[in-house]
């Protein structure tokens, strides 16, 4: 009830807000490229942050504009909250009304904080996931956040269970175990709830699992449909409505015939990243993970439907189209990155597209309706691929950089973690730019025959990563999706593993792995000017959010707690003397233990009253 009241009360203020925004926007509009979020997928600003991606279009844009380029330097700490967990915190805080919800890494606690009481914990939900699941989580025991819908909070646990809990009381509504840790399946992703479905996929592409995306009924938790990423068409939910744009994706049972016999059963293609939803087309968009094992010589063929993006009907799960960005993936280029749903001019016509910074380093602009690739330009340094052929949709591989059994291939750029890993970018409708936190790293890779034993890693590669050209490991790029080129770049010493946040005050936020939380001038003209930064207790790999607090002020919240694939050297105390540790990431992160320490604290900032 109270929520409803609040909402009604707020409405006028929102209107006023919008007016203000457009007033500010006027001077910017002159150089605006015309890109805007898909209207149906990005509701007007309500000061809340109900899902990690902020909206179905995955903009991660908060229209709040109290914090501006000119006053951001006055930001002060409003309150903090220690999660008592010292693993990698990748989750975004969820803000609904007066409440903030925080999910932690394994053991996947959910904290409810009352924002009206300075962030005091109201309740904590402990799901007790199986401890053994820690042993099969490839890259730290992370969790990427919960999602709020209809008074319930939906989240997943590492051992493969989906929970729905009552947002107010913290009582469990239902739970459903959909992952099997004995096969190596874990779940780390944040579920997406839309049209009464909870969409969850599995993790474990390094364990020889078979990837899938499941839709559970949001009310009961019962399985509505499950779409595998490999195997026969009926498992992949490919039917008559499947009309991929490119010829290489057409044919019967490609999920079987593009694999060696049986290999598709353990072939990966997990779904552990971001899902976007277009309420107008009723289609979801998500990427599939890498095929397993990493050693590509063990799986000749295109390895459908891994490392590509699926468009599916949300009601039935039936596939509409598919685009494979790395057929016969050589480098673990999971294609699970976010897709930002935009409407933007293509050849002079406003076209519904999704923009996805691919893990392989190409910024794909794909037609949401058909799967046609309009452009795919590199947004980072790549030497293992030589562009995307827009006629066939296939990426052109550089032969010399293809890993071969028995010989290390040196200086492959980008690394297995890609030009950009899971950490999501943000889109600001005010500037029309996409803010992409990403990496600039290269690797040496030596592959060998991997042995499949259920529930154990299935990789077959030794990797050593290191900084790419220039010696910096991270880049924060402002990308113009229409003109398909970068506007400005910020070089960061460490790879960027945190998400980005864009705000209506033309400030973008991101964090670094050594604990700096930074505010940057979002404008194209600003050139990536650093406006403000603060050093926090631990590295940041989570997703900053912005919301309007009960007091009407704009807050910016971020969780520290270094970890994840890149930060495991700190959170799991890996030994830097083994450069291949953590799939080669340790080699690139040897200096991290000296620059930060494990942590797990929520920091909330606001302008002084």
């Amino acid at each position, binding site marked *: 009830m109270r929520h409803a009241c609040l909402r009604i009360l707020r409405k006028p203020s929102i209107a006023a807000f919008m007016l203000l925004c457009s007033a500010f926007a006027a001077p910017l509009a002159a150089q605006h490229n015309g890109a805007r979020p898909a209207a149906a997928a990005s509701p007007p600003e309500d000061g809340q942050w109900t899902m990690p991606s902020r909206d179905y279009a995955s903009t991660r844009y908060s229209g709040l504009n109290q914090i501006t380029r000119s006053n951001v330097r006055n930001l002060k700490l409003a309150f903090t909250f220690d999660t008592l967990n010292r693993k990698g915190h990748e989750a975004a805080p969820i803000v609904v009304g007066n409440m903030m919800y925080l999910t932690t890494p394994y053991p996947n606690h959910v904290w409810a904080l009352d924002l009206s009481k300075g962030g005091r914990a109201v309740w904590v939900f402990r799901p007790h996931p199986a401890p053994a699941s820690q042993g099969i989580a490839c890259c730290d025991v992370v969790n990427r956040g919960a999602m709020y819908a209809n008074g319930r909070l939906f989240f997943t646990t590492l051992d493969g269970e989906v929970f729905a809990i009552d947002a107010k009381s913290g009582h469990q509504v239902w739970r459903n175990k959909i992952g099997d840790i004995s096969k190596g399946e874990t779940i780390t992703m944040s579920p997406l709830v839309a049209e009464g479905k909870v969409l969850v996929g599995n993790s474990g592409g390094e364990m020889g699992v078979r990837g899938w995306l499941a839709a559970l009924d949001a009310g009961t938790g019962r399985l509505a449909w499950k779409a595998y990423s490999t195997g026969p068409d009926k498992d992949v939910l490919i039917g008559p409505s499947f009309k991929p744009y490119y010829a290489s994706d057409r044919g019967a049972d490609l999920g079987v015939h593009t694999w060696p016999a049986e290999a598709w059963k353990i072939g990966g293609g997990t779904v552990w990243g971001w899902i976007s939803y277009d309420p107008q087309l009723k289609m979801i968009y998500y990427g599939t993970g890498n095929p397993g094992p990493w050693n590509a010589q063990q799986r000749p063929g295109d390895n459908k439907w891994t490392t590509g993006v699926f468009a599916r009907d949300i009601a039935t799960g039936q596939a509409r189209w598919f685009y494979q960005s790395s057929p016969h993936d050589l480098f673990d280029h999971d294609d699970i990155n976010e897709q930002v749903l935009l409407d933007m001019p293509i050849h002079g016509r406003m076209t519904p597209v999704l923009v996805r910074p691919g893990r392989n380093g190409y910024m794909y602009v794909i037609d949401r309706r058909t799967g046609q690739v309009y452009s795919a330009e590199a947004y980072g340094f790549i030497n293992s691929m030589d562009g995307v052929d827009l006629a066939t949709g296939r990426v052109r591989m550089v032969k010399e950089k293809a890993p071969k059994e028995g010989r290390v291939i040196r200086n492959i750029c980008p690394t297995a973690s890609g030009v950009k890993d899971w950490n999501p970018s943000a889109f600001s409708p005010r500037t029309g730019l996409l803010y992409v936190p990403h990496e600039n790293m290269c690797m040496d890779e030596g592959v060998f025959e991997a042995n499949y034993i259920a529930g154990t890693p299935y990789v077959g590669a*030794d990797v050593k990563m290191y900084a790419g050209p220039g010696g910096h490991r991270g880049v924060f790029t402002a990308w113009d999706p229409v003109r398909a080129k970068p506007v400005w770049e910020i070089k960061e010493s460490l790879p960027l593993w945190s998400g980005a946040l864009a705000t209506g005050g033309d400030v973008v936020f991101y964090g670094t792995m050594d604990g700096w939380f930074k505010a940057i001038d979002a404008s194209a003209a600003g050139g990536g000017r650093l406006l403000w930064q603060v050093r926090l207790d631990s590295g940041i790999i989570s997703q900053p959010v912005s919301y309007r607090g009960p007091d009407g002020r704009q807050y910016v919240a971020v969780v520290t707690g270094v970890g994840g694939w890149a930060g495991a050297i700190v959170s799991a105390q890996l030994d830097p003397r083994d450069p291949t540790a953590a799939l080669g990431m340790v080699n690139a992160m040897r200096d991290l233990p000296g620059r930060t320490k494990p942590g797990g604290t929520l920091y909330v900032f606001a302008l002084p009253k």
Partner: protein
Amino acid sequence: MSSPFRNSFLPRALPSLHAGRGRGWVRLSKRRFASLAHPPLAPPLQGGGFIALAFLLALAGCDREQRDMNGQPKAETAAFVPRGDPRSAEYENNAFHIAQGQKWFGWFNCSGCHFHGGGGMGPPLMDDQWRYGGRMEDIVASILYGRPNGMPDWRNKITEQQAWELAAYVKSLSAHPRQDALSARADEMSNTEPQTLQERQKVVPETKAQPSGEEN
């Protein structure tokens, strides 16, 4: 411990060598000698004298090279492996067993989680931190019976001998066995500093098992 030398035919002069027998000295067991005497053509020991030979024998340490491929039944390993299992010494400083362990380490995907000792999904093995104890017996127990925070149990997937060999290899990651039983590198992508050049790590007797997260 009963003397393993009872059945040996070494001259009386030698026991002075045994007096200082720590980890480093050779165990001259009956089996050892059986295999020494057994080859049809142990050539005549020319020159040198027996004492010198015995000294060399002690120096060269044949246990280190003994290739016991059999792994025939020995006492069942109990759910936790008691201290002082005679197999500890037998496997820990034996180059062949360490090499076999190295092979199993790759085959059975130990390297998938622990990589080449630096850790990843699993904890590092080349440092001196042992969550569940760093003795051979503890390591074998960890391998065979698993540990709650993610280490799977391998009781039914590998043989006991393989577990002991794996433990020997795991110990060699921290350069713990005799230097002359260690190997420098495998024919794979270069990774850690060769064990032969590493500092031998201390074995911290046991650190309390640390559950991750606050509740376990």
